[in-house]
Structure formats: C-alpha cells, structure tokens
C-alpha cells in the first residue's frame, strides 16, 4: 500500500466516469464490498491510505475536546468571579475585581506564537509533499524529513521564546506587587497563563519527541502521523491562546 500522500484534484474528479453521469452504485450486501469510495463499507485495513491518520486525528480531537472543557471551566469561573464583591460593615457593596494592566510583552508573545504556528504548518506540509513522500517510500533517502526538520526546530525555538516571554510578563507583574494570591483577578491571570504555558511546554516536549521520531521511525505513514498530530495540537494551543488573550485584554 503506497504511503499517504495528498490526492491531486485530477484523481478526485475521475470518480465521475460513464456517459452523462456517475455509474450506478452497487449496494448489494456482498461479502467484502469495496467497489465504491465509501470507506465505511470496506473492512478494516482497507479503508484508504489515511485510515490510520484519521484514527489518530480522531483521538487527538477527543483529547482536545476534553481539554477545551477544562479551559471552559476556568473561563466560566473567571466570569463568575468578576461579579465578586462583598458588603462592608456599613452594608455598602464593594467590588473586589481589580482589573490589571496586561504587560505589553504579551502582545509580542502572541505574535511569536502565531509565527510558530506558521512554521509548524510549513513542516507539516513538507511531510505531505507527494514527490518527497514517494521518494521516501521507495527508500531513496528522506527528503521530506530533511525539509521539514528545520521548520520543526524553528517551532521549538519560537515556543521556548514564547514561554520565556510569559515568564518575563510574570516577573513584570511581580515587580508591581501582583502575585498569584493578591486578588481574584491576579488568581486568574496567573492560573490561565500558567495552564496554557504547561500545555505549551508539553507541546514542545512532543515536538522534540517528533523530531527524534522522524529519524528513528521506519514507516513513512507513522512519521506523517507523529508530525501531523503534533502540528494540530500546536495549532489548537495557539487558538486557545488567542481566546484566552482576548479574554485577558478585553474582558477583565
């Protein structure tokens, strides 16, 4: 079975054969199936070149859905506590929510993270480039890996720079006297940035593992899956960061 590669438009259009329309679809329940393009009607292992990739992407999707729920819990707690207040002894309502000024370095960090999404996407595209993948499958060296690796390294560097920038932002807040436990708003600022930072650190770890795996895994399909899943995880962390950043800058 040839390795996974992107289908050109010509192949997809070729489904329409026959004079004046598609051939009739055979729906008889014969054992085996497989005359059409409906992958679900095929037995396992014969569902197309992307069967394994789809499965792992599906697993990653569900994992990220759970992760999204985790972040949603934090964000809803954020909104609930925005209405935090208390009654002073004279029965006046005093709000306890003190919006803090977001350190400007966070804007630079956001730009760096978006750039890193672009770099890892470049790496992913290289790994699916048809000609290079065909060469790899035939055993003629690893051109796709060679082209993708620098981009992956660039992503790792940008990721580390992002985390360093987050750390600097924390230092800046601490020098103003705003620590984790200072007030409710600072709770959430630190918690949200720390949670996202931990996820990103895990992503950097995954990138490092993917880099090693690119040189150690033997099957082209598995190399593609490793980088593809890491890339989607990275993109999702970028999207989460955009939402969280908007939350912290505009909704305090």
């Amino acid at each position, binding site marked *: 079975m040839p390795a996974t590669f992107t289908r050109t438009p010509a192949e997809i259009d070729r489904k329409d054969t026959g004079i004046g329309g598609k051939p009739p679809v055979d729906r008889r*329940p014969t*054992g*085996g*199936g497989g005359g059409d393009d409906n992958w*679900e*009607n*095929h*037995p*396992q292992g014969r569902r197309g070149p992307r069967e394994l990739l*789809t*499965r792992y992407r*599906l*697993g990653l999707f*569900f*994992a990220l*859905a*759970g*992760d*999204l*729920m*985790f972040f949603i*819990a*934090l964000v809803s*707690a954020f909104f*609930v*506590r925005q209405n*935090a*207040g*208390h009654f002073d002894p004279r029965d006046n309502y005093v709000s*306890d929510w003190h919006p803090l000024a977001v350190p400007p370095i966070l804007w630079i960090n956001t730009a760096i993270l978006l750039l890193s999404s672009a770099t890892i996407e470049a790496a992913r595209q290289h790994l699916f480039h048809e000609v290079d993948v065909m060469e790899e499958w035939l055993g003629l060296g690893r051109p796709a890996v060679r082209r993708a690796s620098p981009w992956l390294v660039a992503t790792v560097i940008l990721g580390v720079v992002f985390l360093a920038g987050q750390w600097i932002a924390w230092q800046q807040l601490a020098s103003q006297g705003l620590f*984790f*436990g*200072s*007030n*409710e708003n600072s*709770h959430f600022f630190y*918690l949200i940035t720390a*949670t996202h930072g931990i996820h990103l650190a895990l992503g950097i770890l995954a990138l490092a593992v993917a880099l090693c795996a690119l040189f150690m895994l033997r099957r082209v399909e598995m190399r593609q899956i490793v980088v593809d899943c890491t890339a989607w995880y990275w993109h999702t962390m970028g999207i989460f960061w955009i939402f969280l950043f908007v939350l912290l800058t505009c909704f305090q």
Partner: protein
Amino acid sequence: MSLRLQTERSPRWWLFTTDHRTIGIAYLLLSLAAVAVGTVLSIFMRIHLIAPDLKLPFWGVVPPEGYLALVTMHGTMMVFFVLTTGPVNGFASLVLPAQIGARRMALPLVNAISLWLTVVSFGVLLAAFLVRGGAPISGWTNYPPLSAIAAAGPGQATGMDLWLVSIGIFCLASVFGAINLLTTIVSKRCQGMTLMRMPLTVWAWLVTAVLILFAFSILLAAVVLLLSDRHLATSFFVPPGEVIDGLLVAPHANGSPMLWLHLFWFFGHPEVYIAILPAMGLTSSLLANFTRRPVLGYPFMVATTLAIGFFGLLVWGHHMFVSGMNPYAGTAFAFTTMAIAVPSSASVLGWLLMLLSGRESRVHPLPTPMLFTLGFLSFFIAGGLTGPILAQPVLDAYLHNTYFVVAHFHLIMAMAGMFSLFAGVYYWFPLMTGRLMNERLGKWHFWLSLVGAYATFLPMHFAGLAGQPRHYAQLTGSTSNLSSLLPLQTGITHSALFLATAQLLFLVNLIWSARRGRLAETNPWRATTMEWALDASECSVVRGPYDYRFDANLPDFILQCADEAEQE
C-alpha cells in the same frame, strides 16, 4: 470449544499488556477490591451509628471524625472506583471491540495508561488512611471552606490533599479511557456496522464516554483550583474573614464556596448517569437475550439514551436548591430535572413491555444474569420513583441531606448499578475464563441480596421523612429527638450486615468457578451480539444486533455477523 482467552503469558507480561480483554479483567478486579473495601467501611459506619461506643477492629472506638472519614472514603471509593470503573472501563474494555467487530481498541496504549493511572489513583486514595490526621471528613462532595482550610477539621490536611491528588489522577485516567472509547466506536466499527446497528451497550458506552469527557475535565479544573487554594494562597473558594478555632485564618481575597458547588455538581450529576447508562444498555441487551425477542423499539431506546445523556448535563442545580442559589435558578433546574424523568420512564416502560411480550418465548428457568437484570429493573424503579419528589425544590427543601436522599441514591446507584455489574459478570464470565458460574450459588446470591437490599434501604426513606440528616455519627447524646430513630436504624444495620454477608456467596462463586466451573461451550447464552462469535473482526454486518426469532419454523436467533445460511 473453550473460549478461554490466551492469557498464558507470565505475570510480568500480564502487568504491562495492552490487550483489551486483559485490561478489562484488571479493571474488574480493581473494582472488586474497591467494593470490598467500600463495603467494609460501610459496615463499620453502620455499626458505629447504632453503637457509638463499641470498639471496632483496627480502629478502637471510632471518634466522630473517624465516622466522617469512613463516610467520605466509602462514598469516594464506591462512586469512582466501582461504579465508574466497572461498567464503563471494565466491561467496555472486555467486550466493546468484539461487539463492533474490531480486533482491538483504537488506542490500546491509551487504554493501558488509563488502567495504570486508575490503579495509582486507588493507591493514593488508600494512603489517605495512613497519614497523620487520617482520611478527609468532608463527605465525597468536599465542600469548601471545610475542604479548603486544613485547620477546619481532622483529616483535612494531608488526608484531603491525598484525596485531591487521587481524584485528579482519576480524572486524567477517565478522560484517557473516554478518548479511547470514543475513537474506537467512531473509527473501528467493522464493515456494515452502521450506528443504528450497534448493540445498545455500545450506544450506552458512546454517550457515557462523551459525558466522561465533559464532566471529568470540569472536575479536574475544580480539583486544581482547590489545590491552589490550599497551597498557593489563592482564594477561589474561600471568602475573607474566616474564623476557625477562634483564630482568624490568613487573609484571603474574596472567594466563593458556591463556585465549588457549581463546578462539582456540573461534574457530579453527569457522573451518576455515567454510572447508570451502561447498566441500562446492558439491561436492554440481556432482556433481549433471555426473552429471545428483539429489543422493543430500538431507535426509541437509542433516543432515550441520547436524551438522558443530554439532559444529564443540564440538571446539576437540583443538588443545590437550598444551598444559596438563586430561587429562580432553582425553578429552572426543577423543570429540567423533571424532564429527565420522561426518557427514564420510557426506558422502564420499554423493558416492562419486553418482559410482557416475552412471556411465551423466554428462557426457562431464568439464569442468574437474567435474575440480576430483573433485580436491576426493580431497584431502578424503586430508586427512580423517589427522584421526582427530590426534583421539586419545595419538597427537597425538607428532604435535602436527609436519609431520604441516601435511600434514593443507594437504591438507584448502589443497588441497581451493582446488580447490573453482577449481571454483567455472571453473563460475561465465560468470556473471561471459559467457564460458567455456578447457577445455584448465583440464585442464592440474588435472592439474599434482593431481600437484604430492600430491607436496608427502604426503611431509610422513613428515617429521612422523620428528619434525620446525613453524616451524623450518632443519634444519641444530642438535644434533638433523633434517638427515637435508633430502633429503625438498628434494623437497617442488621439488614446491611445481612446484605454484606450475602456477597460472600458471590466471592466464593467467583473463585470456585474460575477454577472448577462447568466448561462453557461457544456462545452459552445463545446471544446474537458479536462478542460471542469466534472471530467477529473479519465479518461484514448486514443485520441489527438483536435478531432473535420467536417463530418456531426458523432458527432461534442469528448471530449478528452471520450470513443468512448459518444455523444455531
């Protein structure tokens, strides 16, 4: 021909296996250990309640905080390690791939990691008994500030931290398990297995996995926030001005205990549906199997499963009617909670009709799995019917946190859930060991448990109506008139002892049958679902999952993956 699965590798391979059937058995053994520990804890609780000055083995005289520690750990162990682990992870790992025609799970390593994390979580939880101060005392719900301030009670220091770490690890384990289940069900169904041809057990696991994904992520967030409050000087849940033991607690920013209640119950209510939905799916399957008739209204049953899963996410406020929540919100939750009674009643009616129409074709005599399924039905009705009372805020304002609620959830979660677990174990025992469990012991186990359970939990309704609150370590020595309930509670304790003793029959049966039970032939229950087929993964499915025939001229049933010509 024996169905014995090939587990003849040496033990050290067994520990690190990714084979889903072995993992399923490991989960079930973990649940067995947890239910044994949880039952012993509950016996200690019951004895202490009626005889507070009695010296118990391992403990001496149990102080009030000891009683509360028993309650907390009993609840935690049963809800998490028995009712979440057994039906979902245990049974699904055992039979799900076969039921959908797959050879293995989609992400077997993730499944294995989920098992190991669950085992670690169990160990950490048990360690809470051994640390200074003992286990936590704030109930399985652990409302802050009692759970947020270490000085608020004995066991709330290291014991509480261990509980939080244990449950945090458990959340991760459950989410991993759910990811594996969802990916498997979506992508590994065999050829021809459309969604509407899946057995109802698989539908139940599908909805349960989605609920796990949502609910346990929220619980993980809540646990992280509480740990942060305890150790990182934040105050998500602790308001300022707390005075414990006469001392002002270190100043906190303005937190709210209500935030914990909302987060916890947003998890807590789907959790009980996670515990019961697989049991409902199993009930449908077993009723079909033993009445030899297809499930009545298969699309209808699927719809009720989906409806219960969906509504289950919208009803959490009914645990909080008197907690300080807005009364208008109380009304909203009351209506959604009453709404969820409709699909549940629909399921029960469907099952009752299956039984009625199966009067002529059912298996005779009823084997043990069917008896336990009938027991499930009885307890589900008994426990479920007190739900609508508790769903009305004005009545719940009296009954909240009394023994009425204890009776309600024990009947529907503990007894119905446990009976379904028993039914599953008796039913799938041939798949695990190649042998059948002893029928006579099974019948005795069933009847004694049924009688014992009703004798234990029905009287609790009256204790609740009389006003007895939960978590009370003793009924005497106080200024109220609760001591008049002592005879009632004594009767309950005796029944509980009887019920617990009856479970020894199950243990004996389990151990004896695993070694010397009657060898089972292939498909001993003559079921249509594919876990009983010899090799289902190469087949192409063309029919529904419950193709039982009751026309005398045709063969009795057709296995789901068989062609037309195959005989019984």
